[in-house]
């Protein structure tokens, strides 16, 4: 298989045809911040946190294929500022009460906020009127925390391949809808996996909560992205 030579912030990298910039960068031990991306799922390009610049043009690293000679700009001050702004906007757009959230410490949005040292709100809080809705099965959907990353839409499926969740509406009225009949068929394991895949605390498996003590949660000891380069060859 032919190799693709490209650079990320000047670092020489090797990719393979068909890889996205994100996949190729990770394979080379380079971290590109991301939120809606999930290993093994088709990219959605919905959160735009992974925006990089190639030839001066912004593009989503999770969807853009890598090509020969690409000079990818990743950790520039400008891009990091923009990513911080995206994270801040996601926070004010929903109702994110980290201290009482089950996902706190394991939440990727929160971990990014720590990465970007989001100390004060720069944008006005929207305080949308949202609620917790049962899915009819083993899950609760906490809409206050949903960032519409579409991970659940892409991954939570019944045994015969039917999607349980799907986007409804447009623009600011958009929300993730659910088929309660299909959701009620999800097994305990399916529900656990769905909750684990959700980057925030929007999907909650019933009857359990806060089982991992503070100090042992995913991001308590290591910041988001710190595993990249350690596991990659």
């Amino acid at each position, binding site marked *: 298989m032919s190799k693709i030579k490209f650079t990320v912030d000047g670092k020489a990298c090797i990719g393979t045809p068909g890889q996205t910039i994100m996949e190729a960068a990770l394979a080379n031990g380079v971290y590109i911040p991301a939120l809606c991306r999930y290993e093994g799922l088709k990219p959605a390009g919905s959160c735009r946190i992974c925006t990089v610049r190639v030839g001066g043009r912004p593009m989503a690293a999770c969807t853009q294929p890598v090509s020969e000679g690409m000079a990818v700009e990743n950790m520039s001050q400008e891009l990091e500022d923009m990513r911080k702004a995206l994270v801040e906007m996601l926070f004010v757009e929903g109702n994110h009460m980290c*201290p*009482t959230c*089950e996902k706190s410490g394991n939440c990727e949005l929160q971990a990014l906020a720590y990465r970007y040292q989001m100390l004060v709100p720069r944008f006005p809080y929207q305080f949308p009127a949202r609620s*917790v809705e049962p899915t009819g099965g083993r899950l*609760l959907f906490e809409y206050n925390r949903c960032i519409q990353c579409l991970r659940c839409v892409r991954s939570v499926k019944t045994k015969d391949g039917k999607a349980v969740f799907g986007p409804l509406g447009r623009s600011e009225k958009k929300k993730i809808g659910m088929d309660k009949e299909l959701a009620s068929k999800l097994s305990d394991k399916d529900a656990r996996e769905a909750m684990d895949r959700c980057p925030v605390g929007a999907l*909650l498996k019933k009857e359990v*909560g806060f*089982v991992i*003590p503070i100090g042992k949660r995913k991001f308590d000891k290591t910041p988001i992205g710190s595993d990249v380069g350690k596991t990659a060859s």
Partner: protein
Amino acid sequence: MGRKITIEPITRIEGHGKVTVQLDDDGRVVQSRFHVVEFRGFERFVQGHPYWEAPVLVERLCGICPVSHHLAAAKAVDIIAGVGPEGLTPTAEKMRRLMHYGQMFQSHALHFFHLASPDLLFGADADPAIRNVIGVALMHKDLAVQGVLMRKFGQEIILATAGKKIHGTGAIPGGINKNLSPEERDSFLRGPDPLNADKMIAWAQAAVDFFKDFHKKNTGLIDGFAAFPSNHLSLVRKDGALDFYHGALRAVDADGKRILDDVDYRDYLDHIGEEVRSWSYMKFPYLRALGKADGWYRVGPLARLNTCDFIPTPLAQKEFETYRAYTKGKPNNMSLHTHWARLIELLHSGEVIKQLLLDPDLQGSDLVRKGRKAREGVGLVEAPRGTLFHHYRINADDQITMANLIVSTTHNNEPMNRAVSWVAKNVLDRKTEITEGMLNRVEIAIRAYDPCLSCATHALGRMPLEVALVDARGNLISRKER
């Protein structure tokens, strides 16, 4: 012309309170009231949330004793998770107890040393510039250092059991999410000096001795200030022992006659009613057996040592016997004796912490149990300031549909009003000028019950206090601020 004295605000923590004193034409006190003018709404906004979030959500009611709310809610959701009050694994129950007694230890140390001791050491009329914890540190260094480090020890216990010193996550439905590692245990038992259990017990004993000595020299003040008869309510262990974490409800009247005994707290609604009065957002609980007029009661250290038969640790029991002998075995109705009772509980908490640390169950790995789910749960603990009720109902989807919380401050609403009335009648009556010392006496009365209403004073050394003299038509006569 009659006039009204308003003290507002008297606090910052847990909202705003104020005191109003109505005087007649001759300057005699006609009426005095302690109002809580803030509405918090936890009972409403917890609705819709999944029940397992309750222990971490409602603990945000308070920054001083969040562990109490955490554990009362956890005990309620235990029942919802199908695990009865006695159904926890030994490791889970003992970890929760360690968390709770750690909290009692830190909160009682905070209350006495940081908040109350400045009044005792310097007197109610002392300059507020020195009548605070910094003043205590300057004049009585050893006492202040011990107070600060005792609080720290309790906070470290909470950190080791709940994951955070304030607003942790340790207790979960049906159990606990961690055990105590041998390293954590050893750090509390053997050092670092002075932060170990033996030193804490020794300092707690010294604090009790300090109070007894102060009492001997100031008997009139300690015995007479805001003393009035009342009923008393608390949890007691099945055998009548003092217990902060679990037991049955017991209430006694001012003479020690039992009004309630061995009552399962899950039936609290059958025994306790809540009256609403138009001038305060805080309800007035009462014992149904005695009715609204006579059924009010005190909770907290004073009440607990009036309801229990004994204290199940040796040093605290010895002090309890001395304390009880002072009132000839009858209930103690002297408000400032609450501090004495509090320090005996501090000593008891230190002893229990050591007992628990020596128990190998804390290193067990069986942390959570689960049973047949219920739709309703009631949890009760003895918080530092008194009995704390949490009651939840859920729907078929695990979402909370009803929450009812009766907190210590609410139980003590009428007693605090009575204490304020006592000060009004004995200190403010027929006075044309209001002095700083007079205002402070009002707060000393409240402070005996609830440090949340005095924290702003001594913790920061400056109280946001405004007193206005207003005539019968509401016209401002004079204003005093500090």
